[in-house]
């Protein structure tokens, strides 16, 4: 969230994004930047002018538009900024500006944002964190000169209309990526080609599918999907995100989806998600995978059905003819037929080997001699040739190549940082021109990377020549990435440098961004990379683990970590990099937010967290929400409402949409319970609008529940039912017992009103079971008993029975006499008798057997208060 100056006059809202990671912005054509001004809820109409400053010129194809109601006018102003203005809707008082960056055609899904608020210290690491999509992973590689088109192979790729999966499998250096890039660029398939280059970070399933969806949007600009991997929460993607994505893809025109480097996917969840897509992809989606190893997919089944097209290393080897074409026609080396033959044999047609040989040959006058010596040597092709290629460059250039070989992605500025110099951008361009192994990654000549094999060899040589330089290089790379907000790489380099403290500090600062994007796995993988003694001894890292495992609903793990943290007391005081005012504040807030069925403890922790976390803190909205929730589940509804209201306002300012949406939903439920029907409806609709606008449909279950309850209160039970069911599903994945029980009770109420007594009974039973297992379920048990019993024949299931009457009726089911009941409830016999007559009257019966019959007809099992 960028905080704008809170001007109430007609001054433009100015936002400075000049230090946003410019690779994200500059690398893409067709960017859409959407902004929305959020306000508090007062009605007024105003013109609002918005000025956003960017770090560089945006491509001309970039659109700047408001997210939400259409703009009044949009016009580019200066070269380095864009302006838009809009007439405001129902809200007026601007309090914050949210800027979202996305791709043409999508509707304001948050692809990346930088989270900044004015009252946070500068030394806190608040980069763009987990929600950044690396555009350099999307789209095929740009083709260089001197690349063989290999049309016969390309034809095989596109040939078979039956194909569902095309697999290109072979070790490194067999030209898989080049072949597929050429095929994609040639348009031979006749359909748009979406492309994702996978790497180890895609073992986080949320990140993997975020990139895939971005790739699909890049290939098909009109494509949009409601699937949002970042907000799937704890549910597996194969149940939430992927079915939705496949549905949105079905019915479109044919398209190809390429996954490059599939061998990088080793984690179960990500692998399973790929296998699921192979099995469930619609007809029009053709999948292509390139991998160094055999991917763990049901290939045999596809083969048997004739739906698999395979190219393997023997297919990918260059023939002697292709070798001649490459070396002589493409690269103009003018070799004799014998020399070509020798080279072909020596390298066995291995493309990487041939390219390396070609590189070496370029700078040599006596090529025949080179070929002779090369063929006579027993050395491994790679080993031999890399030496040749390196030594063909000036020492300065060699130094540069070796040092930057540690980088996954290379550009001028990071190069400068590593070498402590300037002007590297020019050197890179020069190097890329002559060296086929420095590959451009984008269309702007800005980002490059080494071909994997070449980079590996360079790193080995670096290790051999100057081993003491390696950790400092990684540290500098880490610092550069940290300054530019690409935290994953910053942290990876810190690990490679062996700088545990640096890695820990980075993780402790940026983990909330990754958690917000649902990328829990990324954080957990980092934690596993620390040596055990480092991890166990660092209380702040333990805190990160406690938070992430709690958010993943790994209850036992979280509890174990919290115990460990408690054992490390007394804790050092002082503010944490993630914004908490202290360790105690962090653990207290965590336990207030996720109480695992203990409402009393929730309220206690929440109140304590209020004392520890100041209102200006980014975590305060969560704290306020927790107080509200604790009070709500103890049935102190009026007070809870005030807390939720406060939580909402602060959450909006801080851009914490989950807290904001949830607060609105709870306020709606409270309004319904306190008889304010109009407020209930209005708040429920706002909550639903916010949830869908922020892609939170699979995260904030209470938004659906609140709308369902609101519809139910107006008698529209049939419409309410799917919403309430959805609310239950989301809450089940979230795992918090109190919230799940609440949503089950709401569902049961609706089901019994609809006469679906069996389903109502089982929802009620499940709720009861959960409530019984809660340490302190607060007011939920009373609420459970107040849910209208599924009486048969009643149109809306309500007979106006009071709570006391219900209690008595239950005891009657146990065959207690009226006197026994009076004893049991500590009331007088006369009182019981009066109640019983009232019960008969309301049920329209005249005797106990009749009263009991009308309850038993729904299929047994009694409902009793605790």
């Amino acid at each position, binding site marked *: 969230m960028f905080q704008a100056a809170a001007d109430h006059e007609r001054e433009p809202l100015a936002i400075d994004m000049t230090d946003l990671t410019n690779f994200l912005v500059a690398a893409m054509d067709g960017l859409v930047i959407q902004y929305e001004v959020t306000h508090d809820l007062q009605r007024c109409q105003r013109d609002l002018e918005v000025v956003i400053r960017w770090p560089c010129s945006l491509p001309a194809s970039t659109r700047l538009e408001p997210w939400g109601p259409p703009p009044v006018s949009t016009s580019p102003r200066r070269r380095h900024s864009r302006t838009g203005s809009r007439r405001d809707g129902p809200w007026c008082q601007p309090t914050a500006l949210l800027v979202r960056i996305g791709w043409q055609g999508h509707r304001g899904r948050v692809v990346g944002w930088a989270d900044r608020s004015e009252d946070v210290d500068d030394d806190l690491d608040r980069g763009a964190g987990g929600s950044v999509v690396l555009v350099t992973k999307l789209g095929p590689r740009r083709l260089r000169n001197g690349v063989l088109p290999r049309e016969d192979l390309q034809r095989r790729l596109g040939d078979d209309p039956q194909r569902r999966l095309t697999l290109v499998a072979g*070790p*490194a*250096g067999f030209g898989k990526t080049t072949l597929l890039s050429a095929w994609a660029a040639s348009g031979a398939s006749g359909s748009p080609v979406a492309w994702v280059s996978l790497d180890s970070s895609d073992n986080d399933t949320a990140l993997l599918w975020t990139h895939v969806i971005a790739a699909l949007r890049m290939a098909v600009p009109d494509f949009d999907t409601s699937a949002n991997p970042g907000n799937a929460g704890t549910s597996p993607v194969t149940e939430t995100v992927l079915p939705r994505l496949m549905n949105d893809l079905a019915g479109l025109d044919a398209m190809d989806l390429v996954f490059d480097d599939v061998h990088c996917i080793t984690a179960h969840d990500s692998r399973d998600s790929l296998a699921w897509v192979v099995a469930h992809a619609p007809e029009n989606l053709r999948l292509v995978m390139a991998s*160094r*190893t055999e991917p763990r997919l049901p290939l045999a089944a596809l083969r048997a059905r004739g739906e698999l097209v395979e190219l393997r290393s023997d297919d990918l080897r260059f023939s002697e003819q292709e070798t001649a074409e490459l070396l002589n026609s493409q690269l103009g080396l003018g070799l004799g037929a014998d020399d070509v033959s020798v080279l072909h044999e020596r390298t066995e047609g*291995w493309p*990487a080997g041939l390219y390396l040989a070609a590189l070496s040959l370029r700078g040599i006058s006596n090529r025949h001699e080179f070929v002779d010596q090369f063929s006579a040597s*027993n*050395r*491994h*092709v*790679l*080993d031999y040739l890399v*030496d040749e290629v390196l030594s063909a460059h000036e020492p300065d250039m060699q130094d540069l190549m070796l040092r930057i070989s540690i980088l996954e992605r290379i550009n001028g500025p990071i190069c400068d940082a590593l070498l402590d110099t300037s002007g590297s951008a020019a050197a890179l361009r020069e190097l890329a021109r002559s060296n086929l192994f420095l590959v451009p990654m984008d269309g702007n000549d800005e980002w490059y990377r080494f071909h*994997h*094999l070449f980079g*590996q*060899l360079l790193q*080995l*040589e670096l*290790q*051999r020549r100057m*081993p003491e330089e390696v950790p400092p290089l990684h540290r500098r790379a880490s610092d550069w990435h940290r300054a530019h907000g690409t935290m994953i790489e910053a942290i990876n380099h810190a690990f490679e440098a062996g700088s545990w403290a640096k890695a820990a500090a980075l993780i402790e600062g940026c983990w909330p961004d990754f958690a917000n994007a649902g990328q829990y796995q990324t954080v957990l993988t980092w934690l596993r990379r620390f040596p055990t003694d480092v991890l166990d001894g660092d209380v702040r890292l333990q805190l990160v683990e406690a938070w992430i495992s709690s958010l993943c609903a790994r209850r036992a793990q979280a509890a174990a970590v919290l115990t460990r943290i408690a054992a490390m007391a007394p804790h050092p005081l002082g503010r944490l990099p993630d914004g908490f005012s202290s360790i105690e504040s962090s653990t207290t807030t965590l336990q207030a937010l996720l109480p695992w069925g203990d409402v009393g403890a929730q309220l206690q922790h929440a109140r304590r967290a209020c004392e520890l976390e100041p209102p200006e803190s980014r975590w305060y909205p969560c704290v306020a929400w927790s107080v509200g929730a604790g009070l709500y589940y103890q049935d102190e509804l009026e007070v809870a409402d005030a807390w939720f209201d406060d939580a909402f306002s602060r959450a909006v300012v801080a851009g914490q949409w989950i807290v904001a949406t949830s607060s609105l939903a709870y306020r709606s439920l409270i309004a319904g319970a306190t008889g304010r029907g109009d407020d209930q409806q209005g708040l429920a609709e706002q909550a639903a609008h916010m949830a869908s606008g922020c892609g939170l449909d699979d995260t904030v279950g209470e938004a659906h529940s609140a709308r369902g309850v609101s519809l139910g209160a107006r008698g529209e039970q049939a419409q309410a039912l799917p919403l309430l069911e959805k609310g239950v599903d989301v809450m089940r994945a979230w795992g918090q017992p109190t919230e799940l029980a609440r949503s089950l009770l709401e569902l049961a109420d609706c089901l019994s009103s609809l006469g679906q007594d069996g389903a109502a009974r089982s929802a009620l039973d499940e709720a009861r079971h959960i409530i019984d297992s809660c340490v302190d379920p607060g007011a939920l048990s009373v609420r459970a008993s107040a849910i209208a019993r599924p009486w048969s024949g009643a149109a809306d299931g309500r007979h106006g029975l009071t709570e006391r009457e219900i209690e008595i009726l239950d005891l009657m089911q146990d065959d207690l006499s009226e006197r026994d009941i009076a004893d049991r409830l500590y009331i007088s016999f006369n009182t019981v008798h009066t109640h019983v007559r009232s019960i008969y009257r309301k049920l329209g019966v005249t005797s106990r057997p009749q009263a009991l019959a009308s309850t038993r007809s729904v299929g047994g099992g009694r409902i009793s208060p605790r």
Partner: protein
Amino acid sequence: MNPHAGSGTYQLIVRGELGDRFAAHFAGMRLERVLGTTVLVGEVMDQAHLIGVIQQAQELGLELISVEQIRSEGVEQIRSEGLGN
């Protein structure tokens, strides 16, 4: 399963003779160039470690000819017996 299964001295043979710089890549393994191949010998803790070494070879696009557990005589034994098929 025996907790020490897969541990012991292992030998991997890859095609092509590799220079000494590769020793850094296969940390913990001894490198010897023998008749157009490279023999890597070293102590392997367990199966996971062994798979890791195989993956290291794969990363460099090396062609694996054989992987086997050997007696502690190591490379000398191989030399005297001659390289197998």
